[in-house]
């Protein structure tokens, strides 16, 4: 069977691609015929929960996303917020939970790499990374291995790229024993008039591929077993992606150098589902078509099929639409930085994605329905059972105050995380003015007296007890951490980590958390500008605690007025405010 043959698509192949039979019928309706394997693979990734948000989309719409200072809300690679003086801050948070459980070092490292690409794709120089981590019980046999791998991976990637990792969270609970959470947030700064979007335009403009070569990384397990693979050893190829922070660093410098010229129409990183999602998203948001010749794609391995090329998740790659006639200028920059550069196609006005390989058309799909007409589900919800409040203890305290304080300070969630953040270069670039260890990190805006305050927050325990209140609390805590350093809170990003949404109780948690967050955002005038959803976080039917991580960004207009948590000396008055 060849890639372009559709006769061998069986119900089993469809199921292995994670598509339901209803979804498959819908595909046939859209195409007016059965898809071939390449096309089926493309649908499967574009319609996956990860890319299409099919379970969460209708609820995400509840978030307030606008404010006078918001330049770009959800929908692009990252959110964009005005910070005055012709500058904007660009930020987003993303999960890499599953890969980090399988291969902690590479999983966490490539998570950091991916979120950085979302930021510099928009023309911003990444200036800070934060990481929100959730592990199982400290005594669980896998925890030590997972935590040391994840921390080394985040450090290994961020340190090498030269972006300081300035804050985050790290807590422990048994519900994460078999499903850890690794969420990374990246923050960048750009010129307001130099923000780039992923909208392919201009018929005939070249589509170029830059960065690292494409290999067979990360092509998802299920498809490995599909009809096209016969060789046993091939089927056993690892499906984890391996990151190369060195290439990422070169890619940042090369992209920013190119962005300083006037040659880019659109740019998109190849994240999950690589070449597929980047090309479809650029064509869809531009309302255009694209034709690509897969023979031009730089490959790391021989004998790769169209299916593999389109689904590879090899890291450190970008797709760019250039203004016609600027190819040589762009090529020179990428060659200087020792990166691959290849013209792989051009923009068309057909509204179709046409892929050729070996002179044959291997896929021909209408762009709009593949990216826009994915199913949207309104899954049933069940409210969480109300937990009994813990009653205040009456009578004599069970232990003396000193002992209790020491016990609290020694608990894994509260204990100092210095051993962890000392492994992260949190100082590179020389602008870190509040380091990890305080309420929010503060990074100076290079060459100014302004600072960005950054924090990540969530208390999964609260969200489990009362999802609505827990969602509100996460937003409120981020807000408080920002004002505690003297910042004006601007906006948040988030990463919603939940169990299987097909179970009404989990879906109920997701919806209530979103509604709680939305309520707090509205009241505080603290809009959501970007985010990410990670569902199906469970093992053997045991879900994680609901964890809607919030990444907050605030602005300090004058760093001279920043506050910290160190007591400045003797004789000061200590006040307690609030309820």
């Amino acid at each position, binding site marked *: 069977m060849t890639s372009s043959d559709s006769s061998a698509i069986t119900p089993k192949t469809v199921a292995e691609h994670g598509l339901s039979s209803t979804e498959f019928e819908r595909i046939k309706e859209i195409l007016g015929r059965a898809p071939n394997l390449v096309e089926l693979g493309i649908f499967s990734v574009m319609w996956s929960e990860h890319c299409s948000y099919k379970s969460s989309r209708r609820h995400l719409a509840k978030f307030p996303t606008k404010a006078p200072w918001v330049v770009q809300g959800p929908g692009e690679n990252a959110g964009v917020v005005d910070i005055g003086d012709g500058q904007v801050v660009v930020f987003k948070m993303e999960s890499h939970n599953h890969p980090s459980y399988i*291969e902690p070092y590479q999983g966490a490292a490539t998570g950091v790499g991916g979120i950085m690409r979302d930021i510099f794709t928009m023309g911003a120089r990444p200036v800070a990374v934060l990481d929100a981590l959730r592990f199982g019980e400290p005594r669980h046999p896998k925890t030590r291995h997972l935590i040391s791998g994840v921390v080394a991976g985040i450090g290994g990637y961020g340190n090498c790229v030269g972006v300081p990792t300035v804050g985050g969270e790290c807590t422990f609970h048994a519900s994460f024993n078999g499903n850890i959470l690794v969420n990374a947030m990246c923050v960048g700064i750009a010129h307001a008039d130099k923000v780039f979007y992923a909208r392919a335009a201009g018929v005939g403009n070249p589509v170029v591929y830059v960065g690292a070569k494409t290999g067979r990384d990360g092509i998802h397990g299920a498809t490995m077993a599909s009809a096209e693979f016969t060789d046993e*050893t091939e089927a056993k190829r690892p499906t*984890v992606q*391996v990151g190369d922070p060195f290439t990422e660093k070169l890619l940042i410098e090369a992209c920013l150098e190119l962005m300083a010229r006037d040659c880019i129409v659109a740019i998109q990183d190849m994240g999950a589902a690589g070449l597929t999602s980047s090309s479809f998203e650029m064509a869809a948001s531009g309302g255009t078509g694209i034709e690509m010749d897969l023979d031009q794609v730089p490959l790391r391995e021989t004998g790769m099929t169209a299916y593999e090329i389109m689904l590879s998740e090899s890291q450190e790659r970008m797709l760019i639409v250039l203004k016609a006639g600027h190819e040589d200028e762009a090529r020179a920059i990428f060659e200087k930085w020792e990166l691959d550069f290849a013209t792989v196609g051009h923009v068309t006005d057909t509204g179709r994605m046409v892929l050729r390989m070996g002179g044959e058309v291997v896929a021909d799909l209408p762009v709009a329905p593949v990216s826009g007409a994915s199913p949207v589900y309104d899954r049933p919800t069940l409210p969480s059972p109300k937990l009994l409040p813990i009653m205040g203890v009456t009578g004599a305290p069970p232990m003396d105050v000193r002992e209790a304080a020491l016990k609290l300070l020694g608990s894994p969630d509260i204990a100092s995380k210095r051993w962890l953040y000392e492994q992260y270069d949190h100082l590179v670039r020389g602008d870190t003015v509040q380091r990890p260890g305080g309420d929010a990190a503060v990074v100076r805006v290079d060459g100014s007296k302004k600072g960005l305050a950054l924090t990540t927050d969530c208390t999964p325990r609260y969200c489990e007890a009362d999802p609505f209140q827990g969602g509100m609390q996460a937003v409120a805590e981020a807000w408080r951490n920002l004002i505690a350093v003297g910042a004006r809170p601007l906006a948040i990003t988030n990463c919603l980590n939940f169990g299987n949404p097909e179970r009404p109780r989990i879906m109920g948690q997701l919806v209530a958390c979103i509604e709680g967050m939305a309520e707090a955002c509205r009241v505080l005038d603290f809009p959501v500008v970007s985010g990410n959803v990670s569902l199906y976080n469970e093992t053997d039917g045991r879900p994680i605690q609901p964890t809607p991580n919030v990444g907050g960004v605030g602005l300090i207009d004058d760093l001279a007025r920043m506050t910290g948590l160190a007591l400045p000396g003797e004789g000061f008055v200590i006040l307690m405010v609030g309820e």
Partner: protein
Amino acid sequence: MRVKVAIGLRPGVLDPEAVAIERSLKGLGFPDVANVKRQKIIELDVGAPDREAALTAARAMCEKLLANPVIESYTIDIA
């Protein structure tokens, strides 16, 4: 007994270090260099009474610590 474990990346796994070495050698006047592959060797005394026991111990060490089975494969040699 002395055991020698050789650990390499599984086929298809990106090895950026090998790429950097190859490119650097080319730049240093060896234009024909190709197919650079890296391996790590770990040699150690395992304190086992015989070959069989040494092999079992070495295999367990690889699974538990020395190799990362997700991306690496290994071979064991007994001196």
